[in-house]
C-alpha cells in the first residue's frame, strides 16, 4: 500500500504541478468568467441603446391599437403621441400608407435586436387585425383563421409507451424535455469528451515515457507492475477530478458574483423529477467512463517503444470517444430514443456518452440505466485485468505494435 501511495502521490503531484495543467485550468476558468459576463461584454461592443419611448405620428385610433399590442409584448417601451422632438432612446413611427400598411421607423441610434423584433411583431399583428376588419370577417371567421390544424397521432409504439400516449402527444412530450436536464447532459458529455481526450493522452504519455526512458525497469523491480499501473490510473483520475473541482468552484463563484437571473428566466431553467436522476447518473457515467478510457489508454501506452508511435497507439481511444460523443450530441434534439441510441448505449465504449442522453427521457427505466452502469463496471474490470496481465510483459518488451505484443504475450 505504501508503494501504491508512492507512485500515486508522485504522479498526482507532478501532474498537478505541471505548467500544462495550470495553464489549461486557468484558461478554462477564465473562459467561465468571461462566459458569465458575456452579456456585459456584448454590451461593450454593442452601440445600440434600449428604446424607452416610441412616438407615433398617426391618428388616435391607430395609436391606441398599437399601444395595446406593444405594451403586451414589451412593457419597457412607452408609446406616446409625437410632439415633434426625438431625444435619446426615442424613436419616431410614421404611417406612410394604409392599403397595405407601411411604416417608417426613425431613430438617432441603433435599436437592439430584441426590441426591433417586438416592434415588428406588433406591427405585423396590427396589419393582421386591420386586414380582418377590412375584409369584414365575422369574429368566428377571424377565429378560424387562427386555428391550428388538428392532428391525431396514431403511431404504433411499444406496449409500455402506449398508455402514456393518451395523456400527451409525442410532440408535446418532446417539447417538454426539460431545458435544465438538457444543459446538464451537454455539460456532462462535453466535459467527459474533453477530459477523456486530454487525460487519455496524458496517461498514455506517462506510461509510454516510463517505458521508453527505461525507468520502468527500476520501478517494476521495486513494486508489482499491477500496483504501479493502478496507482498511476487512480492518480490520473484524481488529477482530472481536481481539475473538474476547480471548474465547479469557478462556476459557483461566478454564480455568486454575477447575476444570472436574466439568463435563467430567459431559458426557463427549472428542475423537474428527472433532474436529480440526471445529475446522479451523469456523475456516475462521467467517472466510470473516465476510468474505462484511462485504463485502456494506459494499456495502449505500454505497447509502444518509441514516443513517436504514441498518437497512433491511442487512435482507438480517440476514435471511440469521438463516435460516442457524436452519437450523443447529434441525437439530443431528435428522437432521443431511436434504435442507434438504444443499441450504442449498451456498447461499453459508447455507454458513458449515450446513457446520460437516455437518462433525460423519463421513459427510460432505472433498470436500463443500471444495466449501463453494470456494463461499464464489468468492462473496467476486464480492461484492468487485461492491462494488468499484459503490462508486466509489455513494459519490458521492445517490440512495438499492439498485435505483435499481444501475440508475443499470448505465447509466453
Amino acid at each position, binding site marked *: 500500500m*505504501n*508503494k501504491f501511495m*508512492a*507512485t500515486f502521490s*508522485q504522479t498526482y503531484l*507532478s501532474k498537478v504541478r505541471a505548467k500544462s495543467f495550470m495553464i489549461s485550468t486557468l484558461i478554462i476558468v477564465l473562459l467561465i468568467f468571461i462566459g458569465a459576463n458575456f452579456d456585459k461584454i456584448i454590451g461593450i461592443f454593442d452601440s445600440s441603446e434600449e428604446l424607452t419611448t416610441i412616438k407615433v405620428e398617426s391618428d388616435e385610433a391607430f395609436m391606441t391599437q398599437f399601444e395595446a399590442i406593444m405594451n403586451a409584448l414589451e412593457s419597457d417601451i412607452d408609446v406616446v403621441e409625437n410632439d415633434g422632438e426625438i431625444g435619446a432612446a426615442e424613436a419616431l413611427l410614421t404611417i406612410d400608407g394604409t392599403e397595405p400598411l407601411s411604416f417608417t421607423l426613425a431613430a438617432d441610434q441603433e435599436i437592439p435586436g430584441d426590441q426591433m423584433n417586438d416592434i415588428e411583431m406588433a406591427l405585423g399583428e396590427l396589419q393582421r387585425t386591420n386586414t380582418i376588419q377590412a375584409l369584414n370577417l365575422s369574429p368566428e371567421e377571424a377565429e378560424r383563421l387562427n386555428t391550428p390544424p388538428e392532428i391525431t397521432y396514431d403511431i404504433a409504439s411499444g406496449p409500455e409507451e402506449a398508455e402514456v400516449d393518451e395523456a400527451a402527444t409525442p410532440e408535446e412530450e418532446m417539447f417538454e424535455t426539460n431545458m435544465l436536464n438538457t444543459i446538464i447532459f451537454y455539460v456532462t458529455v462535453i466535459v467527459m469528451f474533453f477530459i477523456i481526450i486530454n487525460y487519455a493522452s496524458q496517461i498514455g504519455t506517462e506510461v509510454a*515515457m*516510463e517505458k*521508453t*526512458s*527505461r*525507468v*520502468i*525497469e*527500476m*520501478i*517494476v*523491480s*521495486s*513494486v*508489482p507492475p499491477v500496483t504501479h499501473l493502478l496507482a498511476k490510473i487512480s492518480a490520473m483520475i484524481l488529477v482530472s477530478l481536481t481539475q473538474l473541482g476547480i471548474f465547479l468552484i469557478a462556476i459557483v463563484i461566478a454564480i455568486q458574483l454575477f447575476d444570472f437571473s436574466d439568463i435563467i428566466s430567459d431559458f426557463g431553467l427549472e428542475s423537474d423529477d428527472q433532474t436529480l436522476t440526471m445529475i446522479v447518473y451523469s456523475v456516475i457515467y462521467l467517472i466510470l467512463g473516465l476510468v474505462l478510457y484511462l485504463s485502456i489508454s494506459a494499456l495502449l501506452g505500454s505497447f509502444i517503444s518509441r514516443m513517436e508511435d504514441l498518437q497512433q497507439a491511442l487512435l482507438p481511444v480517440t476514435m471511440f470517444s469521438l463516435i460516442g460523443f457524436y452519437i450523443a450530441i447529434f441525437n439530443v434534439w431528435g428522437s432521443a430514443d431511436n434504435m442507434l441510441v438504444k443499441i450504442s448505449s449498451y456498447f461499453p465504449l459508447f455507454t458513458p456518452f449515450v446513457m446520460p442522453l437516455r437518462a433525460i427521457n423519463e421513459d427510460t427505466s432505472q433498470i436500463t440505466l443500471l444495466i449501463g452502469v453494470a456494463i461499464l463496471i464489468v468492462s473496467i474490470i476486464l480492461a484492468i485485468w487485461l492491462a494488468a496481465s499484459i503490462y*508486466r510483459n509489455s513494459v*519490458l518488451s521492445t517490440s512495438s505494435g499492439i498485435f505483435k505484443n499481444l501475440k*508475443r504475450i499470448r*505465447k*509466453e
Partner: protein
Amino acid sequence: MTLELENLSKSFNGQTAVDEINLNVPSGSMYGFLGGNGAGKTTTFRMILGLLQPSAGKITYNGKKIDYDVTNDIGYLPEERGLHPKLKVEEQIRYLGQLKGMSKKVIDKKLDEWLERFGVPENRNKRIEKLSKGNQQKIQLIASIIHDPKLIILDEPFSGLDPVNVEILKTAVKDLNREGATIIFSTHRMEHVEELCESLCILNKGKQVISGNIDEIKSDFGQKEIIIEGDHDVDFLRNMPGVIDMKQIRKKIILKIENESYAEPIYNEIVKLGYFKRFQVNEPSINDIFISKVGTNYE
C-alpha cells in the same frame, strides 16, 4: 545468506537465451558476470529479480523464492539506463526511494551524502534531462543503492563512462561490498572483473562457460604465461617441451606454457645466451581462459 541459481533456463519463442545456469553467490561476495552482447546476462538478472519467469530451474535467496516481499533488500541498476527526464534529481530519488519503503527524511539525508561522495552536490535541484550522461548514471546508481540493499545487482555499471567516473563508481562499489552488501555485476571488460571480483561466471550464448572463485579458476586452469625481453634470438624456445604458443610483440616475447614446471628449463636455456632485461611468469588472464574454453575471442 546466499543467492542460488539452479538449472536456470529461459527461452523466448523457442530461442534459448539462458541455458542451464548453476550458480552460488555467497553472502558478502563480489560476483562478476562476464559475457559479450547477447550472452544472457541481462536475462539472468531479470529472472533473479522476478521480472521474467524462468522457463525452467529455480532461484532462491536465503532459501526463499524472490518476490516483492524482499525487493526492499535488493538494489538494481538496469543495463538500459533511464530516469524520468522531467523530474528533478531530488524528486526522482525520493520517488524511487519511497518505492523501496524509505521515508522522505532518510532519503534526503542519504541523497546529500551520496551526491557529495560522487562530487555532484550541485545537481540536486536540476532536472534529469539537463544532466550529462555520466551524471545521470551516477544518479541512477544512487537510486539503486540508496536504500542500503543487501543484494545489489548492477548491469554494466561502468559502460559509457569516462575513466575518472569509472574510478569513482568502482570505489563506491568496493565500499558497498566492504560494508557487507553482496554485489553482482555484469561487464564485458575483463579487467574490471579481475580487479573487483572474487568470483565470476562467464557466459557465452546463454551457456555457463566457467564459474567460481577467480584464483581457483586460474590455478585449476594451469597454463601460465612467460614474458621475456632481451636482445637475443630465442626462436628455438618454440620447440621446447610444454610450450603451447609463442608470439612476439616488438622486443617482448610472450610464451604460453602448459604449467609452471616448464618455466625453469626455459629460464635455464635463455640465461646461457646472456643478459635479459625481463623474465616473468604470469597468471593466465581471464581472456586466455575464455579463449581456451570457448575457442574464440569473445569481444
